[in-house]
């Protein structure tokens, strides 16, 4: 079983991203579970979501304490502090940030970091509302946990055609971003 934790701020589409990623895993023929860390929804408050992927049925319902992968949608110090709780030495971090890898490495106390360049994404994607799916597509381009077509299929399943189109444009950009 692979356990993934998503961290960010309310309004960034963390819960939606979790749903899309789990749906993509399902389209790959695997079992998947996505669940938000339940809270009273507020824009700007810390948000977490959990995703599990496995070849067999997933029965476990607890939160994820020691994730294999952590995706961080905001490099706010508060989020970085929360996100690293329970990380294993092998846990990989994917951080949406314009900070350097060295700086993030210091803050997150690990070298297993993929920086998703905020500058680069924001230069190419004008609609801030689709950044979350661009981050996901970068994540799967590096981890190979799902194909881009599964992510796009999950997006089409979730959104109306207009919103899906702008998300799919974003995933193309995220998927092609170079590793940093």
């Amino acid at each position, binding site marked *: 079983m692979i356990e993934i934790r998503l961290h960010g701020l309310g309004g960034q589409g963390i819960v939606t991203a979790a*749903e899309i990623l789990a749906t993509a895993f399902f389209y790959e023929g695997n079992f998947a*579970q996505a669940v938000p860390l339940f809270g009273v929804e507020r824009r700007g408050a810390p948000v977490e979501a959990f995703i599990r992927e496995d070849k067999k049925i997933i029965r476990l319902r607890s939160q994820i304490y020691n994730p294999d992968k952590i995706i961080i949608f905001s490099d706010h110090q508060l989020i970085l502090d929360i996100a690293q709780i329970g990380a294993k030495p092998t846990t990989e971090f994917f951080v949406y940030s314009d900070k350097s890898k060295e700086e993030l490495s210091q803050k997150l106390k690990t070298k297993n970091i993929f920086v998703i360049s905020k500058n680069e994404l924001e230069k190419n994607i004008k609609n801030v509302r689709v950044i979350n799916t661009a981050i996901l597509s970068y994540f799967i381009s590096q981890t190979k946990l799902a194909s881009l077509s599964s992510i796009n299929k999950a997006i089409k399943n979730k959104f109306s055609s207009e919103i899906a189109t702008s998300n799919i444009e974003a995933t193309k950009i995220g998927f092609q971003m170079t590793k940093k």
Partner: protein
Amino acid sequence: MKTILEGSRAVATTIKNIAPAVISAYPITPQTHIVENLAKFKADGLADFEYVITESEFAAISIVQGAVATGVRAYTATSSQGLLMMSEAIFNIAGMRLPVVMTCANRAISAPINIYNDQQDALTFRDAGWLMFFAEDVQEACDLHVLAYKVAEKLSLPVMVNMDGFILTHVVEPVDIPETKNIKKFLPPYQPEIYLDPKNPLTLGAYVGPQDYLEMRQALHQDIIDSEKTILEEMKNFQNIFGRKLSMVEYFGPKNPETIIVAMGSVIGTIREALDEFKNKTVGVLKITALRPLADKQIIKLLNSAKNIAILDKSISLGTEGILATEIRRTIKDKKIISFVAGLGGRDIKIETIKNIIKLTEEAKEEKTIFLRE
């Protein structure tokens, strides 16, 4: 066909396929997504039901009560304080023998206010005269609603289908939504013999004096006990049509366990996962799907071989013990029963929590109630 959906949307889609004539609800966390989805189905022209927006849960359940009294199928859903606010009508519905089906997205009760999952809301209504089912996962939550309408309409008894708030209402996981075609095979149109009709005036829920009241309560009591037979029959019919098994109680584990953990709802999944992980050969788990009726004989048989019984409750009868513990204690004699109260107000139940339950149960010299923090 297997798809992947949020639990609330899966249940809402199932209800749409069951096609009640009237839905009335008031939104409350964590039930909200269920009724939002149903309202959207109606707004998008995907459903024919009347959707009545109300100013409170009391109005919602009363509208559903009235609708079913006129001889149509109806639906509502709520949680926690909303369920408490419905309480007067909830008891009435059972006494009037109206086959209402409602979902309770289980949540803690105030005060202190808390929006997270436990089962105190539903368990508080175990004496109301409703049949009560608890789902382990999203699939079961959907399937139990289909079963609920069949049993309710056949027996003129209301059914509350419980799914753990957030844990099941907000999870996205694979599910096979019961399709309209199969539902029609399983569930005939609702055609009651007695219903309110201006052309044939009659009174439902009339005044009953001391000479008959006791007998009417006894009849309701007996019908709930006897409902086990119909539920088992309909579970079999359900399996024949949908290909999925439903049980009132189900045991998972070794043949002659020393210890059995008894629980209800989504925590069963975590317990099963924990026992697999421990590669345990002496501990099993008994899942209670039907709290009302409680399948005493089946439970006695399944618990028979164990020395120790651990009962995991997400509720408590304050001043005594976990509510399920009392329920099981009534059926079982000569066994050490330890009542564990855990997961209240959303406290996470982890694999380590299950490990603690096993350890504390096997160590315990006498029966007691343990509040599990971890």
